[in-house]
């Protein structure tokens, strides 16, 4: 199956490592991934709070582009949206258009103005969903070169890939990432905060509030014995990683905690070169940790 790929704004900025690792992993798995040409902003949260209909139009334009550029597999063009916000907004737009005829007509007219047309033949997918359900854990397992033995991981799903549209996992207690992590040889810790919110853009707008939320997440991960946190969303990753200094100033009991994209983790297990996975872009590096682990591993083997 071939997939179209909708990066979204963050993956071209703070989330570059997500894009790099995602592409690297799919390349290594031999799955073609073509970037949606001339895609535009999904119309996320902020836009939604100014003008809902325009937000829907923005999303619809992307869907229309996907329809015209992609080749349908089982009835629909498969469009991968790695950023949770994009994933949600595109899904939401799609469902609202399907449910509300008036809105649908309005958007269709608007799209025509731009020379686009959307017939509802796009299936929006999150890479986690694709990797676990299309590619399959066993297939991924086949590609694991350096199992991440001894690595304790807090799987962080965040909000928007399981809520409100729980399409591929349970909204309250999701498990797909945990299963994936196990396949990679690491050990997911049980922590009750896997779907608690990171505050989204609040870290920028009301820092104290945003930082507190992330502090609670980080602290609990630490208490549950996690070596690092794995995320599926550029904003979550940024919030959890970038503000750790500021957070530590307020809450000294916090030790630095690396925060990776799940695609980076897969890449590491597959033994892909760190640069391809954008590991050098991390603010809190993992190499030390990995070294320690491999030493332990060596001991264990000896």
């Amino acid at each position, binding site marked *: 199956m071939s997939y179209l790929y909708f990066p979204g704004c963050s993956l071209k900025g703070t989330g570059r490592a997500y894009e790099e690792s995602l592409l690297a992993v799919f390349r290594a798995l031999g799955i073609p991934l073509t970037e949606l040409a001339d895609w535009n902003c999904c119309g996320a949260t902020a836009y939604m709070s100014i003008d809902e209909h325009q937000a829907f139009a923005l999303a619809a334009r992307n869907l229309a582009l996907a329809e015209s550029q992609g080749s349908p597999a089982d009835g629909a063009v498969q469009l991968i949206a790695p950023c949770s916000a994009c994933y949600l907004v595109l899904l939401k737009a799609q469902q609202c258009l399907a449910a509300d005829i008036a809105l649908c007509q309005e958007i269709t007219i608007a799209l025509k103005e731009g020379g686009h047309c959307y017939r509802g033949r796009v299936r929006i997918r999150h890479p986690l969903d694709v990797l676990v359900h299309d590619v399959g854990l066993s297939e991924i397992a086949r590609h694991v070169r350096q199992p991440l033995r001894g690595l304790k991981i807090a799987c962080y799903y965040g909000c928007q890939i399981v809520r409100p549209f729980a399409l591929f996992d349970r909204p309250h207690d999701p498990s797909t990432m945990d299963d994936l992590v196990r396949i990679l040889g690491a050990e997911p810790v049980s*922590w009750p905060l896997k779907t608690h919110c990171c505050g989204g853009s609040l870290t920028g707008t009301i820092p104290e509030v945003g930082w507190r939320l992330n502090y609670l997440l980080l602290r609990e991960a630490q208490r549950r014995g996690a070596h690092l946190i794995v995320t599926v969303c550029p904003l979550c990753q940024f919030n959890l990683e970038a503000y750790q200094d500021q957070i530590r100033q307020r809450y000294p009991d916090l030790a630095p905690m690396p925060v990776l994209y799940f695609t980076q983790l897969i890449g590491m297990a597959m033994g892909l070169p760190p640069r391809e996975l954008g590991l050098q872009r991390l603010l809190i590096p993992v190499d030390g940790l990995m070294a320690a682990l491999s030493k332990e591993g060596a001991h264990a083997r000896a």
Partner: protein
Amino acid sequence: MRAHEIYPNGGPRIGVYVCHCGLNIAGKVDVHEVVEFAKTLPFVVVAREYKFMCSDPGQEMIREDIREHRLNRVIVASCSPLLHEATFRRVLEQAGQNPFFFQMVNIREHVSWVTEDPREATEKAKALVAAAIRRVIFHEPLQRRRVPVKDRVLIVGGGIAGIHAALTLADAGKHVYLVEREPTIGGHMAMFDKTFPTLDCAACILTPKMSAVAAHPNITLWTYSEVIQVEGFVGNFRVRVRRKPRYVIEELCVGCLQCIDACVYKDARFPDEFNLGLGKRKPIYIPFPQATPRVVLIDPETCIWFKTGKCKRTCLEACERKAIDFEQQERIEEIEVGAIILATGFKTFDARRIPEYGYGKYPNVYTALEVERLVNAAGPTGGEVRLRDGRVPKRVGIIHCVGSRDERFNRYCSRVCCMYSLKLAHLIKERTGAEVYNFYIDMRTPGKGYEEFYDRLLQEGVHFIRGRVAEVTDWAITPEEEGKLIIRVEDTLIGVVRRIPVDMVVLAVGLEPQPDAEEVRRMFNISCSKEGFFLERHPKLAPVSTFTDGIFLAGACQGPKDIPDSVAQAGAAAAEALALIDKGYVELEPNTAYIVEELCSGCKTCISLCPYNAISFDEVRAIAVINEALCKGCGTCVAACPSGAARQHLFEDAQIFQEIEGVLAYV
């Protein structure tokens, strides 16, 4: 040409009566206009309106007119015939007229209540009246059929409702078959320790009734049995009951329980159903000490003999009465009864369906039913409230409305949870001295002494926090939350979100229809309401009847109920059943099919269609013959008859054609 010229006797003389039903009809339909319109229609001699036709004066008015104006046809336009057709037919009878020269027009349920615009409502009413007038002209005098009824009653379900109904009927001298799926009767009530609001012990009031059932000469008690087939109709049901093998001969077992001691398993090691797995039992066991009948049974799933075929079978020699029979097979009993009472009860909501509450994930989250067993003196802990790790909880949270009042699961209020939560709160506080928190959306205590009980709990210092819990978690933020379960809730009366650490969480699970309610419903040919409980014939006027004559409802199978309501309803159901069978016969609607012999071509089309084999073929005259006693009046054969020889009383083609033209000729 005038009517009387083709009708020698003056022809049909129709009286039309339009009911206001207070404002229910008159509020929407211009009743006066309908009456004036009716007056203009052929054969209509009188047309009147009245506030409440079904009232005595209303009925009297009709009787008066029948005598005075020599009416031979009557139309009443009011509510649904399912409600008052019988009433008005009686009116005709009382006035010396054949009751079937009557047609009812449903202008309430089908017009005034479902139409927005008064104009359109009035027009629709007129159309329906016109149709009825055309139809009634072609009505014929008919006689109701009388069928003898069996004076025995089947009661399905041996909970408190079934037990009470059984005893009531048995005491009235009627024979009762009481069929219970479980090895013992008693149902949910047998699991409770105390009952609200009086706090008298459930066993003390239930077990006497249970043994009364076992001892009663008029009651045949079949436990560990299930109804598998129901045929026939009101007064004459043929029922087949499967009696599952308990591998112990009921007649011989005296319940000495020697066999249980003798079992090769020295100690009980299998989760025991009656205690919801909180206790253990052996493969040969009795559900609980007061089980009725007091007869042990063997569970083939756990008994070594059944699993491996190798066992000393110490139970065999332990039993002096030689009651144990490893060869026992299931038995099918066939019975004939005149009436059936369904008292199949409820099941509790599966708390796993709300993962936020952590049931099945955190060991110290319990369902209310489990706690009922914990506080029960005869329960697995001898009435001590202990956590799975043996600790006594110091802080307990009771979460109300679990699975109730929730669009995602059940929209309805389960009615009993508030009260049983209060009861459990009291018992837990009494036994452990713990701080008890109730998390409720609304406190619902409508019942005798219920509000007073709520007040008592308030006085006892139990906490009441108005707010639905969003989450139960082991995620501690503050030191005192360490190692506890934290309940996150908005205290809506104060308007702040609170985190309350507790040792034990009790989920007040709601009541749901039995998982197999749907199959049961089909077997007995009754209906279910949206939420899946059995549907009563009328919510107010026929609360224990169903749409199938002769089948009645009692207890929570009809909707969530507490013990007082279940018992009351069981009494009502018993009375209805008694009234039916005691009369000795039932009168059936004379809507049977018949064959006009000279028209029958003997094509036999109808014969294969009849679901009741009521049609046979008379080889001599080469025509079909309908056995009226067997015919239920569905009219399938009538619709199929190519030569129009098959007809149906009350639903003659002529009548229906007139009705069709009637509704259309006027819109």
